[in-house]
């Protein structure tokens, strides 16, 4: 068994930077796990700490039953594929693939056989005698994967596996990687800053920020129910709409509209409470004619995304509300420029909606958008308001300290 368990894992660099802050995480055996976050969030440090290339300042790492916290990288039985692939330029493809076996003193014959076999699995047979300099980016990546596979490690670690490939190749490599991981069934952890990559590849995702994990969950959980406004703003190719809202009885006042309270939040919020209402552009339906329970506003921008268009509406603010930016000071401090987070100075709010082809409005039109039932969320002080503290919300320490 090769699950990875981290307890209170902390890494403080000599210059005082706290890259990992008492982090608890469990990665199941055979899982394809993504570490996702903006640059500087600690995801690469976490990967390197699992590999043993960084020594933890505190806490522990277990692989399977073994405590590997203080083992050197070579004794942990992990293999890593680096962003630049790190192929040795003076060795042939075969020598590169067989390198870990050579270090393990496997005899020459067995080494060559194993290299040929692994290369065959990855479609590299014709390239065995080439040197890395003569290969394309995609081929180099597969050689690096073959080298990692050749010695059958318990864990694969991939550092930004797709970022050195050009856009078209990246999609191909993504599918290839996912199939390979499924076939091998080896616990695999990869680091990425690209949320689409994480959603597409991973069985589960840990979203990180400032050395802490903000949410762990399946791609669906992370996409549909972000545990906080940071994750809400980070996940999704179009960021979630986060709009100031006020509770009024059973309803929610958003701008000038009155919307039903999201199911989750019923009984969790008090009348008059100020919260942030979140709904993804994909979960809003656009209507050119007035409909009940809708936000309305003027169409400002229409962006064509191919099969759909992203429409931005200017929604007038809540007349009863004073002091815009109330929510901005609490929940949105950590969001990465999420579209239309808090109200403008003029009391208006931008709301984005995805419109299917054929139904696009033109700028200047007035439009109505209706949230789909069960797809809207409420955030209090940046954290999701929900009935039970869901299992997907990781540690009790996750939310609070980040703004400070």
């Amino acid at each position, binding site marked *: 068994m090769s699950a990875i368990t981290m307890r209170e894992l902390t890494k403080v660099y000599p210059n005082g930077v706290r890259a990992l802050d008492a982090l608890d995480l469990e990665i199941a055996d055979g899982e394809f796990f993504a570490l996702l976050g903006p640059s500087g969030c600690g995801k690469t440090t976490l990967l390197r700490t699992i590999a043993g290339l960084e020594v933890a300042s505190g806490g522990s790492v277990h692989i399977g039953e073994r405590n590997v916290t203080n083992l050197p*990288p070579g*004794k942990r039985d992990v293999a890593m594929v680096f962003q630049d692939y*790190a192929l040795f330029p*003076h060795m042939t493809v075969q020598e590169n693939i067989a390198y*870990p076996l050579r*270090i393990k003193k496997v005899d020459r014959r067995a080494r060559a056989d194993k290299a040929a076999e692994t290369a065959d699995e990855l479609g590299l047979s014709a390239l065995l005698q080439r*040197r890395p*300099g003569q290969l394309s980016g995609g081929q180099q990546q597969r050689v690096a994967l073959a*080298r990692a596979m050749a*010695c059958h490690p318990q864990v694969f670690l991939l550092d930004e596996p797709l970022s050195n490939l050009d856009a078209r190749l990246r999609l191909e490599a993504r599918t290839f990687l996912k199939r390979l991981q499924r076939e091998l069934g080896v616990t695999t952890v990869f680091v990425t800053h690209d949320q689409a990559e994480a959603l597409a590849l991973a069985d589960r995702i840990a979203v990180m920020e400032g050395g802490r994990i903000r949410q762990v969950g399946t791609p669906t959980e992370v996409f549909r129910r972000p545990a906080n406004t940071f994750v809400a703003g980070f996940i999704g190719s179009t960021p979630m709409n986060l709009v100031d809202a006020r509770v009024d009885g059973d309803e929610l006042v958003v701008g000038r509209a009155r919307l039903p309270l999201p199911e989750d939040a019923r009984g969790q919020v008090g009348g008059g409470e100020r919260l942030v209402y979140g709904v993804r552009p994909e979960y809003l339906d656009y209507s050119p004619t007035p409909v009940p329970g809708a936000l309305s506003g003027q169409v400002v921008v229409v962006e064509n995304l191919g099969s759909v268009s992203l429409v931005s509406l200017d929604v007038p603010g809540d007349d009863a509300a004073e002091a815009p930016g109330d929510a901005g000071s609490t929940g949105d401090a950590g969001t990465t420029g999420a579209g239309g987070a808090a109200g403008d100075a003029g009391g208006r709010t931008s709301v984005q909606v995805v419109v299917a082809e054929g139904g696009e409005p033109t700028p200047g039109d007035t439009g109505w958008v209706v949230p789909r039932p069960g797809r809207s969320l409420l955030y209090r002080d940046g954290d999701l308001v929900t009935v039970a503290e869901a299992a997907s919300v990781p540690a009790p320490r996750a939310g609070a300290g980040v703004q400070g």
Partner: protein
Amino acid sequence: MRPATGASPAPDAAGLGRARATGFLVPAMVLILVFLVVPAAWTIYLGVTNYRLTGLAAANPEIVGLDNYTQALGDERFRTSLLLTLQFVLGSAVIGQAGLGFAIAFALRDRRGPLRRLVEGFVLLSWILPSSVVAFLWIALLDRDAGTLNALLGIPGMAWLLDYPMLSIIIFNTWRGTAFSMMLYAAALENVPRSHLETARLAGASTWQQLRDVVFPRIRGHVLTNLLLISLWTFNDFAPFLITAGGPEQRSEILPVYVYKVALSGGELGFGAAISFIMLLINLVIALVYLRMLGRRKEPA
């Protein structure tokens, strides 16, 4: 494809034309001719005469053909001196300077801050001090009666320069020249990608295996260039004369010292010139060997 606006029809990049370009070159060429080519040719000429500093042969040198060369090759003292020189080059340049320089550079490769600056500062200091100053410092260090080393070790009366003359000058030259190799290797090691070293570490490679499989293949060119330069410099180095003067009993008489003694102290300019020319040939061979190895690097692919 030449731009139509160019006023000068000169085919060269600077637009000088042949005549003016030559004008710029002449002063440098004259200097090289007068101070390099002529003395070199003069040395070759002297090597086939019995020219002396004083006496009859100084006034009327005679051509003696290859006598000087046959005499040198048959001379026990010359052969000993050649052997000592090879020891000196191998010990102080290849093993000492290159080995120590690399070791320091490798040990400090990931370090920043005061420790690195301190080590680099000390190593560089020994490199920038004038030979005469350094020689004096080493004499003071190794002196039999009042030497610092004997005082430190508590063994007064130990005559380092008399008992271990070769070892003394080898260590002296290592100490003096390590800075160059260290800096060159420090720069070369910057070119070794961290991810390559880490890949080797993850495979379980020892430090030695990392050096063999990752570092040396990457910096082979730097290593050969460094060895070429320091071998030649050390081969021609005269500074040991300032410490041991070739003694005692010629036990540290490396070739430059031997030439100096024969030609200037002994006055046999013709013989000295012949040995100088042999040294030149040996240097040439060393350079060719290194350059060939350097050239082979490009061949695979």
